């Protein structure tokens, strides 16, 4: 296991950090080496990508918080326009720099304004000699804003001439970001998915205080055995683990089995988890309903899931209109007249049978003859 080492930070802090980010040590040490020491300029922009819940946001947050690096953390989905986004960054800057007064917010419409205001904000800060980190979570939203936003953020260090690094977090690869006109290439860093071992390790770390680590780890093992096939989302698994743990403990609480009696416990929990996979995981029934079911110890069959209510009652004509529309969507447009009109003109039967595929030609003929006669 690579221990985190960096001359700039005390080893106790690094050790604490390491305990907080299990299975992400290599990425963290990589980031640390890019960041350098506090006062050193870092790479202007870093692009971190990886699948859902591979720890991007969490790692960045813990890293910046534990090392107490000055930073701004913004979710781009929440601040859905460039104006909101830029203003939010400035507001966070103000609040973390000067504890003195909460200045009223300044309108910031363009990136130009932003650069100006940003410089002002950084100047007023006491910690000028530190690198400031701006983390943009869900950065894929930036693509939907004005075209200049993304390239400008990528070279913010150059534009403002300040010690700042922009970190973009995203679930998609950098290639999908790159604008046509070209831009500054950020340093890209990939967060791989957690393996089953990783999941086991991370999940068992947060064991409830009442029970031992081993007991909880055994539970997580069973849980992963059931759910790993369908779900690798750490958050979701954590949620499921918390939901079903009380059921797992039931035999122990009742005194029917000891904490070591894994087979008995497994027998108790396995069907329950399978049921959970079919219901709670699919959000057929909500987790609060699931919990109440557990408390009452009823069969979940009594509670109908969302998909049990698929029956839609429609008014008589609407029903038939819907069916007719569906069926008619398979008819070629040209045949409408023949299907729906009472006197649609004669069709020679043999001809019709023979040239079934040339219906359109036939119709054309009929059209022209009628035109001529009228």
């Amino acid at each position, binding site marked *: 296991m690579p221990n985190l080492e960096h001359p700039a930070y005390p080893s106790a802090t690094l050790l604490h950090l390491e305990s907080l980010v299990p299975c992400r040590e290599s990425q963290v040490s990589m980031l640390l080496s890019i960041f350098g020491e506090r006062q050193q300029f870092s790479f202007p922009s870093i692009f971190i990508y990886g699948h*859902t819940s591979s720890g991007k946001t969490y790692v960045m947050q813990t890293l910046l918080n534990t090392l107490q690096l000055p930073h701004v953390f913004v*979710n781009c*989905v*929440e*601040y*859905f*326009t460039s104006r*909101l986004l830029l*203003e*939010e960054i400035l507001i966070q800057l103000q609040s973390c720099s000067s504890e003195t007064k909460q200045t009223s*917010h300044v309108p910031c419409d363009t990136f130009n304004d932003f650069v100006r205001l940003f410089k002002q904000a950084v100047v007023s800060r006491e910690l000028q000699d530190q690198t400031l980190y701006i983390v943009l979570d869900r950065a894929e939203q930036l693509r939907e804003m004005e075209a200049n936003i993304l390239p400008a953020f990528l070279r913010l260090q150059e534009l403002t001439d300040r010690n700042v690094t922009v970190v973009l977090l995203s679930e998609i690869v950098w290639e999908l970001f790159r604008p046509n006109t070209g831009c500054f290439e950020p340093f890209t860093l990939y967060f791989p998915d957690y393996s089953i071992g990783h999941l086991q390790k991370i999940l068992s770390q*947060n064991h*409830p*205080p*009442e029970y031992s680590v081993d007991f909880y780890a055994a539970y997580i093992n069973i849980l992963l055995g059931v759910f790993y096939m369908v779900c690798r*989302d750490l*958050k*979701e698994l*954590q*949620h499921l*683990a*918390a*939901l079903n*743990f*009380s059921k797992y403990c039931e035999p122990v609480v009742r005194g029917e089995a000891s904490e070591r009696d894994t087979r008995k416990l497994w027998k108790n929990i396995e069907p329950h988890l399978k049921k959970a996979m079919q219901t709670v995981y*699919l*959000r057929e029934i*909500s*987790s*609060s*309903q699931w919990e109440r079911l557990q408390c009452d110890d009823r069969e979940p069959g009594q509670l*109908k899931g*969302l*998909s049990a*209510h*698929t*029956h*839609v*009652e*429609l*008014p*008589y*004509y*609407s029903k038939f209109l819907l069916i007719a529309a569906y069926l008619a969507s398979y008819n070629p447009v040209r045949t409408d*007249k023949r299907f*729906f*009109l009472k006197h649609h003109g004669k069709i020679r039967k043999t001809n019709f049978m023979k040239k079934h595929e040339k219906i359109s030609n036939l119709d054309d003929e009929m*059209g022209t003859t*009628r*035109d001529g006669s*009228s």
Partner: protein
Amino acid sequence: NDFRERNNDSGDAELRFVTCQSLWNKIKSETEQIQEDLNKQLFDNLGSFLRRSHSEFQEKTTKWTCRMKSREIPTAALVLGVNVTDHDLTFRSLSEVLQNNITPYIALLEAKDCPGIKNLMQKLMGQLMNCYIDVESLEDEDYVQVSQNRIRCSMTSLINWYKSVTKKTDSETPSKKRTSSSRHLQSPPVVVIFKDMESFSTKVLQDFVVISSQHIRELPLVLIFGIATSPMIIHSLLPHSVSSLLCIELFQSLSSKEHLSTIIDKLLLTAQFPFKLGEKVLQVLINIFLYHDFSVQNFIKGFQLCIVEHFYSQPLSVLCCQLVDLKKRVNSLSHDQCENIRRLPSFRRYVESQVSEKQIALLTADSFLKETIQKLLEDLHVYHENYVPVLRCLHVFTSSLPKYPLGKQIRELHCACLENRVWETKEYESCLQLARMLNKSDLVTMLQQCVEIFVSSSGKEFDKTVEKLKEFLTQFQKLEVAEAFQERDVSVSSQKELQKKTDLYHLQKTLLELKESRRSKKLTKFEMLRFEVVDYIDSLVRNYLVPADHKTLHEIVYFNTASVLRGHLNAAPRTALHTALNNPYCYLKNQALKSDGGSISNKAPDICIAYKLHLECGRLINLVDWLEAFSTVVMAVEGPNADAASSDQVDDIIHARFIRAVSELELLGFIKPSKQKTDHVARLTWGGC
């Protein structure tokens, strides 16, 4: 006041208007009451859901499970059915109930206001912050001065707002705190209602859910999705990554069919309201409901239209009032009104059935007429009072028969009874036959139900009926013992006979005899009694369920002109358009346009001429030919000048008129430009060619 215009002095217009208004108000409040009662259960459930949903938020628990579980947004999926027009009212009363009991912070969002997440946030914040101002009235002027657009439209400002609001209520004077905390929770949830979840764009919904799930720990948000189709729509609109942020519970409102049944039960099948719907009218309303929209609101609107139309068009509707006012109104009838009454077909039938002196008195003496009218109207009221319980009673019988010959719902039975003498119909016949085959336990329960109906009814004539029915019930009880004996005797004796005879011939003979005897066997006592019961019910039906239009003066309280109603509610725009274009006289009432069908008048509006000409064409129309034909028709006016115009150049003005007519037709959807031939247009309708 429109009432007066039509039948100036004779119609008691003012009084009719007032009567109509008061009747409608009464019915309106009644329907609202019904709606409230029906929704009560649903709203109670929703209320307890909302209370429960953020209990963790209130307690600020730090238990392990709470820490580990991801905080989901509590979401109520409210399945309301396809009758979208009713939803508005439901949501309004829902937000009212919630406002009174749970939280002042409610935002109602509609898809049409929220094409993007930005609009949604604006709308949401606008509604929430305004509601704050409403609740706290004018106390804090400074808050009001913060103008809408200066507030940053983001979740953080919403959270700040929420914090400031809840803090304020905490630090309020104790007296005020007590009042507010008694109604609302300590930190009331913020409820966001999506009225029509299906019409929201998925992106907006997803973004909103993602954003608010980030802040769920600071802002106790609850979502309510109004769903018209099926709750599965949530999963098809939201991907798993988003729907896993929600904690969805399902709530189902009462089906609108049941709602309608209750409305009909409370509004129509009661003697409480003097106004009645005729069979055809009721059928039209019910058909619109069942065939088109399932909307109870539209049904009630239709009912309102019937009331207005009735009071507007029927001068005698002034007598359609409560029984207490009747005498005064009858006495103050003018001579014209009396004449109106004499002209009523049902009254004329009544007169003809009287002896001659009485006939003369009725036709000449107003005072005698008024007396008779009052008596007849009172009879009519009694008829209604009796009609309803007997109808319900009959429904008890028919609704449990196999295949429901007279319909499952009481409204179908009601319509059948209004239409004509129900006992003359085939369905009724088969009903009786089936009723004669009912088993005893069913029959007894039905009789008990009937007794209850009659006892609770307001009719005065039913004491005897109740007695009679109770007598039947006791007889059934007595039978029980005796019957058991008899049954056993019969079976034992026949079996003995069978055992005695052994050879084939005799066996066959005895079997035949047995069969014969069973066929012509004397009825058992139970069967006799059953016949009696059915006959008795039959007699009740014949007595009381006489169709209303056989009653004298039914025109006063029954609204029967279904055609008017159909014209208003079930419009046929295609036909109307065709009529307008084909025969403009129908709408314009210009004598010059009155023409016999075939020819095209040149005085008609240009669009009519163009339309008529285009009817003669095939699928593709040559614009040049069309223009020529058009100009020929138009020029036909200036007969003498025709020579000058007939030079191949078409007048510019006529050309312009033609172009305008064609583009109007295109706008109406009769033609469209064709890509096959550039100077042609394609017809989009087939009619007439």
